[in-house]
Structures are given as C-alpha cells and as structure tokens.
C-alpha cells in the first residue's frame, strides 16, 4: 500500500525492542486535543486504477495541436538518449551531492554542465543551475545590487513580462528602484535607455532575442552600462546561442536564461532549468550550488561542492540567496542534450530554427492583411500584425488544429492585433504551409 516492507512480526518485535506496546504509544507526545479535526482522504487505489485515472486526465489535454506558441518556452525535439540517461535511478533517486565520495557521478555531470553553460554564454563561471529563467534574473539582479552597492535596476520591456512580474514580486519587500524602458517598434530604445543609466544604477537587464523575437547586438548598451560602473545582465535563449552572439562576446557581466529548450519537456510549466553564468570576479556573489574540481588524498582528480560559504546553511540570513537546491536532473538533461548534439549539431539546430522561421515569414507575408514585422532580424520567433484581434484569430485557429502563436496584447497594451509566432525545427514545411493556408482562411 505505502511501499512499506514491514510484516506483522517485524512490527511487534520492533515495538518490543523500543519498549512500547503499540504504535499509538509512539505518538503520545501529540495531545489528543491536537489530533486532526478531519482527514478526509480517499481510500487507497491500486497502481492500475491510479494509472487509468490519470491516463483519462491526460487525454483531456490537447496534444493534437500543431504548436507555434513559444514566448520563451519552446517545443523542441528531445532525443531518446536524453530520456534514457535521465531515467537512470542512480541519478534521479539521489540527493544533493553532500558526500563527494559517493556522488562523483552527479558532481562530474554538474561540472560538465557548468562547462557547457560557460561555452554557450561565453562567460567564465556557471552555477549548478537555478529553478527557472525568472528566478535566475532575480538572482542576477540581486548579485548586481550586492556587487555595486547600488539599488537601481533598469529593465528593458523586451524582457519577458513573466520574468519582470516575478522580479517585482520578489523585490516587493526590498529597497530596489526599477525603471522600465519601453520598446519601440519591437526594439529596445537606446535613447530612452541611455537617459536612465546613472551612477545609482546597479544593473541593466536586456533580453536577446527579445520578447518580440528581435535579435540585437547589445555591445553598445554594455559599453554605456560599464561607463557608469553598473553591470549588464542578459537573459538569453540557449538554442539560439548555436548561432547568435553569446552574451560574453557582447561584454555582458551576467547571463541568465531558461534552459527548457535543452532537452526538457514543456510539461505544462515545469520542471524547468534556470541557468546563470558570469564573469569570474562575480563568482562569490553567485547564488546556488557550485561544483569545483580538486584532487583526492592520492592526487586523483575529483569533484566537490565548493564556495559553500556563500550559502544559507552557513550564512543563514546573510547568505547570497535562500536558494538551497538546484534543478540537477534538468541540468543533467541539458548537458546530455548538448553533448549529443556537439558543436555541429548545435549549429545545425540553430540554423534549422532560423531557416524555418524565415520561411514562415515569407509564407505569412503573402496573406493579405497580414503584416510581418521586419524592423529587426529575428531568430525563430517573430511578430505579425493581423487585421483583427489576435485573441479571436488564435481562438478560431484552434479549431483548425493550430496553436498558432501568442497574442501580444496579453502582455503589452495597444498590441491587440499582434501575434508572436515561434517556429522550431519540429515544424515541417508542410506544417508551415498549412498554418499559412488556415490563417488565410480564418482571416478571409
């Protein structure tokens, strides 16, 4: 029933050893008056019954839609080898590797993960992962506040609204001043941005590609930020880094992002993977676990959790963050995914996403009344203006078998007719043509 191995005899002999006559006696410290007022939980079910019940619920979710929704969370193909490794229970039924001698597998895998995050982002150091892309931005902002001793954060509104909202929630009881820079024609406005960077600024947060899909080179922003002694933080999409300029190359001090696209299923919002990399002088401000290489008493290479004095079990209220776990199993998926693809595969994957999105732009721009926004280059996601409310178009496209995109009006005022469309390598030429045909029919 509850996966317990005890026989009746076991229980009575154990009770005898303990010197009590019944299990109830073990709970005698809980006064009768404090016993549960109710405990209305359904009776036990068999594995078969529970599985059937949940299969029924799973069937109530739509899996037939051809998906063009991205908005920071993407439908990429996951090679079976990723699932196979993540299903090794020697990985998934272990806990945080506190005892390095019996956790070298995990520690080495995380060290390898840290390495690939550094390679992807072009930065020096990475932690062992954070909860998600949003908590990663919050942690990065707090790093900058600690490092600079300042408290003003400037954020481009091309950063995913979900993350901006999380950042406001998390800092609502802290002394942090925010400035949001409006997006003009889907791009960050340098003029507005530069106006606000001053000697009180701890950090400027940019996203690339931004929420509208626009690809930018932020080198000039970073230069301006550094002139004022502030830090530059980038939120990036890891699959795009097979092609796009990594944040380290643009001069960013901290890179964060959502690692879901690296072999992690969409799974209705989690578990996902927050990643964070930074320049090495910031390592002591970094939150979360970090694995380092060292040697054992015989000089053999081995791995340990290191720089733990930053963490809450030592620093308590003075810790860099309250985070004490990571998303190790998701980080494992990411490192296996990237290792399988290798540099060629990663480049190819980015290339496919880019090419297919360009093809989709071409197809959709032929539909009368649809305007593909071309003011900036894009990677695998782009914005179109529709002749009517995007919500309504999305609604009607569901009937045609498509989740055709994300209506920007949900997150931005005045953009009710705009639709954000993501095209991953999983969408075939045929899918894209059918999307275009169906959209034409819906609009016609």
């Amino acid at each position, binding site marked *: 029933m*509850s996966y317990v191995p005890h026989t009746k005899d076991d229980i009575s002999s154990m009770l005898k*050893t303990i010197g009590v006559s019944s*299990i109830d006696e073990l709970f005698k410290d809980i006064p009768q008056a404090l016993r549960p007022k109710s405990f209305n*939980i359904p009776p036990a079910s068999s594995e078969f019954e529970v*599985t059937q019940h*949940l299969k029924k619920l*799973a069937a*109530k*979710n*739509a899996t037939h839609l051809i998906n063009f929704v991205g908005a*920071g969370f993407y439908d990429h193909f996951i090679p079976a080898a990723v699932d196979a490794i993540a*299903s*090794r229970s*020697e*990985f*998934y*039924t*272990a806990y*945080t590797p506190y*005892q390095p*001698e*019996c956790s070298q*597998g*995990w520690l080495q*895998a995380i060290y390898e993960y840290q*390495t690939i995050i550094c390679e992807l982002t072009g930065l020096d*150091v990475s932690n062992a992962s954070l*909860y998600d*892309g949003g908590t990663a931005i919050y942690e990065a902002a707090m790093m900058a506040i600690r490092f600079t001793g300042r408290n003003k954060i400037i954020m481009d509104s091309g950063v995913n609204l979900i993350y901006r*909202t*999380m950042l406001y929630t*998390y800092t609502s009881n*802290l002394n942090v001043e925010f400035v949001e820079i409006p997006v003009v024609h889907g791009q960050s406005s340098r003029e507005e941005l530069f106006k606000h960077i001053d000697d009180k600024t701890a950090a400027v947060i940019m996203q690339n590609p931004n929420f509208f899909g626009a690809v*930018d080179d932020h080198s000039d922003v970073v230069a301006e930020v550094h002139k004022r002694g502030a830090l530059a933080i980038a939120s990036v999409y890891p699959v795009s880094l097979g092609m*796009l300029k990594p944040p380290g*190359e643009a001069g960013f001090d901290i890179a964060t992002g959502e690692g879901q696209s690296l072999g992690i299923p*969409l799974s*209705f*919002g*989690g*578990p996902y993977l927050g990643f964070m990399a930074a320049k090495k002088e910031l390592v002591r401000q970094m939150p979360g676990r970090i694995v*380092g290489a*060292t040697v*054992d008493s015989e000089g053999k*290479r081995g791995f340990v959790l*290191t720089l733990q004095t930053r963490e809450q*079990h*030592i620093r308590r*209220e003075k810790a860099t*963050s309250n985070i004490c*776990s*990571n998303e190790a199993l998701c980080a494992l998926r990411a490192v296996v995914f990237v*290792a*399988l693809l290798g*540099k060629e*595969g990663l480049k190819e*994957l980015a290339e496919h996403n880019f090419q297919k999105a360009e093809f989709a732009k071409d197809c959709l721009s032929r539909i009368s009344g649809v305007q593909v926004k071309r003011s900036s*280059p894009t990677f695998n996601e782009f914005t179109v203006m529709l002749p009517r409310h995007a919500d309504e178009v999305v*609604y009607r496209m569901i009937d045609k078998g498509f*989740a055709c995109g994300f209506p920007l009006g949900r997150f931005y005022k005045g953009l009710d007719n705009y639709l954000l469309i993501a095209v991953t390598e999983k969408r075939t030429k045929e899918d894209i043509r059918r999307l275009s045909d169906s959209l034409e029919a819906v609009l016609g």
Partner: protein
Amino acid sequence: MKLIFEKHKEGRVGFTYTKADVPLALPLEAKYCRKADVHLASLSELDVVRHYTNLSRLNFSVDTNFYPLGSYTMKYNPKFTERIASLEGFSQVHPLLPQLLGGGMLAQGSLEVLFETERLLSEITGMSAFTMQPLAGAHGELAGAMLIAAYHKDKGSRRKYVIVPDSSHGTNPASAAIAGYQVKVIPTGPDGYMDLVEYQKHLNNEVAAVMLTCPDTLGIFNPQIKKIADMAHEVGALMYYDGANLNAMLGKARPGDLGFDVVHLNLHKTFATPHGGGGPGSGPVGVSESLVEFLPIPRIVRRSDGTFALDYHRHKSVGYIAPFYGNFGVILKAYAYMLKLGKEGLIQAAELAVLNANYCRVKLREHYDLPFDKICMHECVFSASRQAKNGVHAIDIAKYLIDKGYHPPTVYFPLIVKEALMIEPTETESKETLDEFIEIMIEIARLSKENPILVTQAPLHTPVKRLDETKAAREPNLRWQQ
C-alpha cells in the same frame, strides 16, 4: 573518469537533424552572430550514453543504497509515477495553452490535477487553500514569507522581526531576510524544546511571524506547540510551518489544527517524488483563510459547470512566484502517490517512519550520545561527541559508512548538537536493512575505542578518496578548459 570533453574526436557525429526542408534564407549579419562555433566535444551517441551511464554508477541513490539522510526523507520513489509523468498528454502541453482564448478547455486534465492536488494537500494539512507555484522547499519558504509580509502590509502594520529557533533550517532566516525581515533567534532549552521564557521575552507587536519546524529538527514533537501558536497570535504574529518533517505527522496532526497560518511542504520529501540529485522539487504553500487573498496568481478555480480555469483577478495577490503553475511534472507524481496510498497508506507511512526511527534510536543509544533521549518522530539525532574524544568525528563516521555501502546520515546539523548525526530511515526500509545499518554503526563505535585509525582513514573503496576541499575553495576550478 575522463570528462566528456576529453573524449572528443574531431569529425565524430552524435545526433543529426535531417536537412532543412525549406528554401535557404540569407544568413544574419555577422554582428549578430557568434565568432566561433560553441566549443564542444564531438562524440557518437554511444560515447555519450556510456559516459553518463558510467557516471550514474558512481552515485549512491535510494534505488541502490540505504540513504538515511536526516531531514530529506529519502523514501522509495514508486516507478509508476514516472510513467504517468511521461504520458504525452501531460509532458507535451505548453504552459501558455490555457492562457489563449479557448485554450483552457484544451488543458483541463492538467488543471484538474493541480486543483485536486491543492484540495488533497489542504485536507492533509488542515489549511484553507494551497498554491502549487513554489518550485522547491526554500522557494516555498520565500513565498510564505512574502505572503506574511503582504498580510501585515494590508493590515497597515509595520513589523520588523521573524522569530526562529536556533535549531531551524538555514533557509528560514535566509527567506525571512529576503521578505524584508530581521531575524531573532530563540535558544533551545535543556529539554530539547524552544525556550518559552526567551520566546515570551522576544514576542511583541513588532514580530511578523514565528517560523517553526514540527516535529523540530531534533525529531521531537513539541506538545506546547499550540501554546506557542496562541502566544504568537495574541500579539498579531503569524505562525509559519516548515514542512520538511511532515512525514511523521500524516493523519496524526495537521499544522492547521495546531494553529499554523502558513505552511510549506516538500513534495519530494513527504510525497515520494524523486530528489533528482538536488532538484527538481516542489514546495507548495498552504494558508489559513485570512491569507487566501494574497496567494500568487493565477489561482486554479472550478467553474459552476465543473470545468477548471485560471483566475488572475486577485488584486491583493503577491504576484507571480513561478513563471506558471509550479513544477507540474513533480506535482503530478505526488498526486499519483497520494491517490495510490489513500488515507490508510498515508497514515501507515507516518507510523512506520516513526517506528523505524525509534528502532534506530533505541538500538544505538548505548553506543552514541543521544542529547535528547525521548520518543522521537521520523528521525533521531545522535551526537558523536563520545567518539570524537578518540579522534573519530561525525565526518569520519560518514566516510566509513560510505565504504560499507550506506549513505551517511545528515552530519553537523542541527547546529545545536555537537558532532550531530541525524538519522531518518523512512518507512520504506525493512527491519533487515536497519539491523545491518545498526550493526555497522555499532562496529564504528567499537572501532572508535579500539582502533580509531580504521575509521578515520575511510573511505578506501570509493572512486576517489577524501577530497581536498581547501584546494577547491582556494583555487576555484569550476569548468573544464583545454
């Protein structure tokens, strides 16, 4: 073992995509692109699979070893929940689907799982409502501390302090600090309970909340808990329940009935979802009636027609704690576990977890110091002080256990016990496993007297010997470089 990067062979190919089936567009301008390819190893699929399979074999895990790591509830993780989480109907659903017009009806299964899990957890803990958003225990604590801050702000009361006992988890003070509070620490009395005189002294209308673990980190249930809660409520402070140790309480006592206002749980502890090498976890937060309006948005609601929907219209909500609705994949496994166990199973889990812990306590108390010798709940905390006099410290005991194939207990926590050894066997371990473990622990106690070097030189049979942590911290090497 070699690193994956050290197995590189130029020209080798692992995973390939078919050729693009669309006409080629002009490439992006160079200024937007990376100068050089990402520096990664080229490997075959077998190279990668063998590498990580062999790495997995260097870990201790619940499936391979007894893992009595106190405070983490390393119980068996049933396999059927893994299969359920991988059903396409769950794993492939985009989280934004229910936020599209008409999309909610296409994610009814997932919304129902979330709604029903909230209801079950509310009943198990005696709370009014739950949010499933927090992505781990510490994240739940942070969310809980924010809910407390929102509650007091709404009342127009400016409070400065959060009270924690000195036996608390390190995350408690860290979470309170992020919510804007200063921490007051109350010492533990000689009886193992929080010192009520000190508590009374620090309690006033500047205190926002009292954060407690129950049973506490010594594995002891404090019969005065209701009184502590009443005293807090008297001055308008809220009671916060750190759910790390809920496993002992299932069906035996509910935080809500004990007077707690905010509760965080760890689904990866109590509800048997895998710990995943440190995550993903799930740290849902439950609240009493007066805090429901502050819960993060969206809330999952059931409409009058029985369908489920997302509700964003809660103007007093703290906002978003997670990007979406929580670690859905983890929540799903916990839901399946609760349905499978049912009422009797959950109660039985608590009972046998407590039985196992007390069995270890009684069998080992002759051999190790037991600072607070009374009936414990799900874990027992020994001290290796006696052994330390002969040079055998808690860490040495841990290493010797590893050599014998046992994952060590939690060591050096709680901080108030010198040379602490915190043993949490969980209910899924058999008497035979416990007996074998106890035998090794007794052997260590004996060796500590007779031949301590045999313990202090451990481990001898592991892939690496004791590692130089000083070197790791002084000369940080945090990534591979050619």
